């Protein structure tokens, strides 16, 4: 789950990281009031959960409260990569002398949290990694020790930070690690961390992505979820405990198991089709969950055929069949179904579906080929 910039920076501030003074506005008039209160030039920043806000015109400077109101009027309501801007952050503009990158991420290969710093702040770290990887300095944190001062100093000296800033940098790096652990993040970034004209370090932009598996112990953070972070189908799926990802193709896929769901999408593509979604009904799904999954798939108007691939283990094929019948009896189904049921209670599952006029398949390859043909209207 992604947090907005303003949410991320507020969390950073709680962990002792200096951030600019600022507030969130939902109307141009509010933006004006905030600029008046700050009494300084401000920067008005769109709060949407995508990158590239600056390039899209979603971040603008304003020297006066009137200007703040004007640019807020331009930014609020604008579309950035398909998302409508509903909030802006009005921050005191910083006098930026140089920009640093500082981030914390889980390094899977090292099985540690890695803290990365770079003198190349203000650009995406992936870009720095691709072009000038030597400019990224990384330290790995032992979970029982936490980030030690010497490690943070290694980062500071490694990126050539002027020595008068090292002490403040160490405090910020440790704050970032503590924020990462404290929120169960999977990514926490300050980009850029700037050196100001007054000679201070300041986190002017921030980003936190939370580990969804840990949200149960952070109800306060879970409440911060922006509904725009997922589309309507994905939101509906989450309500039923389904994992659904909306794609652009025409073949709806319902599968049990994440790996098999991905492999099913791949084989659809291999035979010339395009998957409309990733959907994992999980292990041991009951009929109601299966029915919900099908409703979600069928509500996507681009879907021209549905491919159901179930390998029964904990999941019982007869339960899946009941779910299919439940969904198809209550919905106006206008697209063909290709069904493959293998494993636990497969005979009962097939018997239940025998009357339902569905295309069946025994192998996965056959199922995929039939689904592709059905989507083209080549199968009755």
């Amino acid at each position, binding site marked *: 789950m992604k947090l907005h910039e303003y949410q991320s920076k507020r969390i950073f501030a709680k962990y002792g990281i200096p951030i600019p003074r600022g507030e969130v506005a939902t109307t141009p008039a509010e933006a004006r009031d905030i600029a008046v209160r700050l009494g300084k030039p401000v920067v008005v920043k769109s709060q949407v959960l995508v990158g590239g806000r600056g390039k899209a015109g979603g971040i603008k400077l304003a020297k006066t409260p009137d200007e703040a109101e004007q640019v807020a009027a331009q930014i609020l309501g604008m579309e950035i990569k398909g998302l409508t801007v509903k909030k802006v952050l009005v921050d005191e503009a910083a006098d930026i002398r140089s920009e640093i990158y500082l981030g914390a991420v889980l390094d*899977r290969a090292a*099985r540690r949290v890695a803290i990365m710093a770079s003198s190349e702040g203000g650009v995406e770290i992936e870009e720095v990694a691709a072009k000038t990887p030597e400019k990224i300095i990384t330290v790995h944190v032992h979970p029982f020790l936490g980030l030690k001062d010497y490690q943070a100093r290694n980062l500071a000296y490694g990126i050539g930070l002027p020595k008068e800033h090292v002490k403040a940098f160490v405090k910020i790096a440790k704050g970032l690690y503590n924020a990462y652990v404290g929120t169960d993040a999977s990514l926490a970034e300050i980009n850029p961390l700037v050196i100001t004209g007054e000679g201070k370090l300041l986190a002017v932009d921030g980003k936190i992505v939370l580990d969804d598996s840990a949200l149960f112990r952070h109800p306060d953070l879970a409440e911060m979820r922006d509904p725009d972070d997922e589309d309507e189908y994905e939101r509906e799926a989450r309500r039923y405990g389904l994992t659904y990802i909306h794609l652009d193709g025409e073949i709806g896929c319902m599968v049990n198991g*994440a790996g098999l769901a*991905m492999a099913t999408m*791949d084989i659809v593509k291999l035979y010339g089709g395009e998957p409309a979604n990733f959907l994992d009904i999980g292990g041991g799904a009951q009929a109601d969950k299966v029915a919900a999954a099908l409703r979600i798939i069928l509500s996507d108007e681009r879907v021209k055929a549905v491919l159901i691939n179930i390998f029964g283990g*904990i999941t019982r094929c007869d339960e899946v069949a009941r779910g299919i019948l439940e969904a198809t009896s209550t919905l106006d189904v206008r697209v063909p179904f290709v069904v493959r049921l293998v494993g636990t209670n497969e005979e009962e599952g097939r018997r239940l579906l025998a009357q339902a006029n569905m295309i069946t398949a025994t192998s996965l390859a056959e199922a*995929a080929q039939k689904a592709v043909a059905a989507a083209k209207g080549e199968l009755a």
Partner: protein
Amino acid sequence: MSILVGKETRLLVQGITGREGSFHTAQMIEYGTNVVAGVTPGKGGEWAVGNVPVFDTVKEAVDATAANTSIIYVPARFSPDAILEAADAGIELVICITEGIPALDMVSVRAFLDTTNTRLVGPNCPGVITPGEAKVGIMPGHIHTPGPVGIVSRSGTLTYEVVYALTARGIGQSTAVGIGGDPIIGTTFLDVLQMFEEDPGTEQVVLIGEIGGTDEQRAAEFIASKMTKPVVGFIAGRTAPPGKRMGHAGAIISGGEGTAEEKIAALKAAGVAVASHPEEIADLVARNL
């Protein structure tokens, strides 16, 4: 011969009285697995799933039954504690089925396990099966048959699919290991490949990977430099979009890293025959027999 589990396995079930735990314990016993004990704090002294003695602590269970392997079915928020308890009691092999354990908890658990002799398989995995000997997991036992093919996989049902296709062609399996779909896991492809390479009962290996991380690439390096047995590979997620978590917490393409293409290229460069879809794996395996 086989790896990790077999006739010598003396299994302890953590969370044996829960819905999942009791259901799968019955299935494992039916398959012939030697289940010697269960643990549920507060239910010590009771009996579960017929005649399996239940203990309050893993330590007591090990002392009383000489259990050497544990399987964990407890909910995600209690699983890290359960893994540590098993390791602390000297269990050699811990297999954690549970899905949804916070990643940072696993960072700590792994760091602790590195100081012990305990091997963890999982979490978020289907378990390990040595056909005809022991099933320690949630996989459907009947689709397996004993034979010379070792299987290692990040995915559950996808593995069943491959096993089913192999068995249908009369090709048996030495051991099938589900290493799990999480970002931080106890046993990696590399570890299992090493075991299969040393196992006289395994003649060739099937590796089933997916998008996310770089584990498959490191496996490819090992295959190229150290393995003498043939390896057949498959990578799921060629059509997965970047930045989306494809069900498994570990299956995400981030920062341009972990794509199916780079994994397939690495495996091919290591001499691995890579299948274009799951059922083709059986064809490629048959060619090596």
